[in-house]
């Protein structure tokens, strides 16, 4: 029995962290958000060099064939850096969808391209979890799609999309006829989403998609979002602690006021058991199929709620400057907010956990 990361896993996480720390600062993050860029170009290029898009892809398609635990460790660093990158949608969800439900030809074509960093695939999935909010939801007839889907992940530069419709998954190429997209204006600018419109757009079915594989994709999404919030939350805790060690009031460091120390201790205590939960949920994804749904639900719910509290308390420790656009702490708070609500809220996660047990 060993509940710990391996040397290789620690090295992987460190290398992603170091690369992102070097490349992503508030100025470059702000530049992405202000200009509605969906990826931080230098960070993404470095991720490609590190093999991140190939992480989950099996070796036969040029990938590394690692597991959800490694993917979650990378997600934690993505959250810590808050770097816009096509990770959740393309590297995780579209990749898993193709791996587990695609035909041999689809895998060959798309997974090889994605693993090499030569293309990305957007993911349109939220209606399955969050219901329809448009008058014309996507529907399929004779291999063509019509309608609208919202909150599409990693869609801006995508070469194709995977679209959920009626418990099935469809692949649509970006240059397909009748396909248009409109960027959505979201509070979190670090993971832009868009609206896709289909007008008699040809689509290919992913032949092996079914309820179970779709449930498993939702589990993956929730584990990765939880890990992302874990990283973003620890970044906010570290910032609060660092600030409390330099800011003085009443002739003292504010970090010597117990009220401030306790805010910091509460943040750490609320979030850290979540790390163990994320590790276990990610491990279960590949190794304990009976347990993964329950743990994914709770990882999503716990890290969302704890993350939300951390975001608020970290800003509070900073005082007025915490709320300024200038400091940029809000980027992480918004990222945590997006992880919390996108693809289901903590409340939805708890309901799913409940139903799963009855």
């Amino acid at each position, binding site marked *: *029995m*060993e509940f710990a990361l391996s040397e290789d896993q620690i090295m992987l996480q460190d290398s992603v962290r170091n690369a992102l720390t070097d490349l992503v600062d508030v100025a470059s993050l702000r530049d992405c958000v202000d200009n509605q860029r969906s990826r931080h170009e230098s960070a993404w290029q470095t991720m490609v060099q590190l093999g991140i898009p190939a992480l989950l892809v099996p070796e036969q398609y040029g990938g590394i064939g690692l597991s959800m635990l490694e993917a979650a460790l990378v997600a934690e660093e993505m959250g810590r850096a808050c770097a816009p990158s096509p990770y959740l949608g393309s590297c995780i969800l579209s990749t898993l969808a193709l791996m587990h439900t695609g035909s041999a030809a689809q895998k060959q074509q798309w997974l090889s391209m994605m693993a090499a960093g030569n293309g990305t695939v957007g993911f349109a999935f939220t209606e399955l979890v969050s219901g329809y909010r448009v008058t014309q939801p996507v529907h399929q007839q004779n291999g063509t799609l019509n309608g609208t889907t919202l909150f599409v992940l990693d869609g801006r530069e995508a070469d194709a999309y995977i679209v959920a419709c009626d418990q099935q998954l469809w692949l649509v190429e970006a240059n397909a006829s009748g396909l248009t997209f409109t960027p959505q204006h979201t509070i979190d600018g670090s993971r832009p989403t868009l609206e896709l419109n289909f007008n008699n757009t040809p689509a290919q079915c992913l032949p092996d998609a079914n309820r179970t594989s779709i449930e498993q994709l939702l589990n993956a999404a929730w584990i990765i979002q939880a890990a992302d919030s874990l990283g973003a939350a620890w970044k906010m805790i570290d910032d609060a602690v660092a600030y409390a060690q330099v800011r003085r009031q009443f002739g003292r460091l504010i970090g010597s006021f117990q009220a401030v*120390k306790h805010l*910091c201790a509460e943040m750490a205590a609320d979030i850290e058991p979540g790390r163990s939960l994320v590790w276990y949920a990610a491990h279960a994804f590949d190794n304990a199929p009976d347990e993964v749904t329950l743990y994914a639900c709770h990882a999503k719910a716990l890290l969302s709620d704890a993350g939300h509290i951390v975001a608020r308390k970290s800003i509070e420790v900073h005082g007025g400057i915490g709320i300024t656009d200038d400091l940029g702490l809000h980027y992480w708070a918004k990222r945590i907010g997006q992880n919390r609500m996108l693809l289901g809220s903590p409340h939805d996660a708890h309901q799913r956990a409940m139903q799963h047990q009855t």
Partner: protein
Amino acid sequence: MDLTLSPNHIAFRQAIREFIALYGDRAEGVIPGQRPGPKQIAWQALLLEHGYAGRFVPLEYGGYGAPYDIMEQRLIVEEFSRAAIPAGIGNQGISMLVPTLLELGTEQQKRDYIAPTLRGEMVWCQGYSEPNAGSDLAALQTRGVEDGENFIVNGQKIWTSTAHEADMIFCLVRTEPHAPKHEGISYLLFSMDDPGIDIRPLKTMSGRAEFNEVFFTDVRVPRIQMLGERGDGWRVANATLQHERAYLANSALLSQRYAELSQLIKENQRNGQAITTSQALQERLMQLQSRLLALKCHDLRLLTHSMKGTDPGIAGLITKLYGTETRYQVDVLALDAQGELGLLNQSDPRVRDGGVWFEREAMDLGLIIGGGTAQIQKNIIAERGLGMPREPKPVNKEG
């Protein structure tokens, strides 16, 4: 990440299950605040004989003498709580003092005290807190003055759990009044029957007398009954406190409580309707399950650190705070879920589960306070875990 058990551990777990299947009906739990009776002592004897109590205590001190294996310890706790069977006596003597004796006791002390303590025949109480020394324990004033081969003890302890039932006390006294406050303390072991000891029970909010005030007037304690060196009592006490915190933050017990809570919610009505129809209560139940599962995983992580002898850092410092809070929330939800019936006390015929949920709420609130309060835990997390500035030294110390 390797969550498989070794073949030896699988066999060990199987043996525990068989033992429980065979003998489980003889199990008798100890009522908090009370001495073990004959049935509990018989159950403890059976556990000792089969190595499910005192497993790693050497044979010569009345244990089972197995080589230390923390995974086995965990399996015992897990299997007994899964079966909802009390894993023998878990009082302060067994959980805190025995490990401290094994670490720091003299040969004579180990021979005199460990075996009867393990058997449940010798009950101990912990004499640390005083009226003016709670969180600031090192401010304690009970004096121990050397007199030939004895120390003469005078002073007062408070919140001493089970003192009214105890045979013995492990007690902190100040032997070096002029030394700095952490360096003048010694750790004495003595009988509660000694002349000069006066015990006055204090009722808790649950209505039971679970702890006490204890007064010492010229109590004579032989020098050989000092645990650790003279003036070194603070270090000894800290060794005991480590064992206490590990014992308070136990996710196996929490799992058992959670299972009872979820049973209660599944099977009962609240104000005339199935409790499960309340979305709000179901949501709270799931919030607690999130915390419980996180703690279970967290336990595995800490267990791995113990096995490897590595420092878990902040992950280890948060468990008392998080674990006791979660346990308390379980009790509160169990009461809320009952609606008005949750107001009944244990004497009312309509009370659920014998009124145990309110007793637990009171007890678990006590655990948030005892063994280092939640606020003290936060100080520790901030200072040792996050490297924030230490508390300022008190300026105007009285006395």
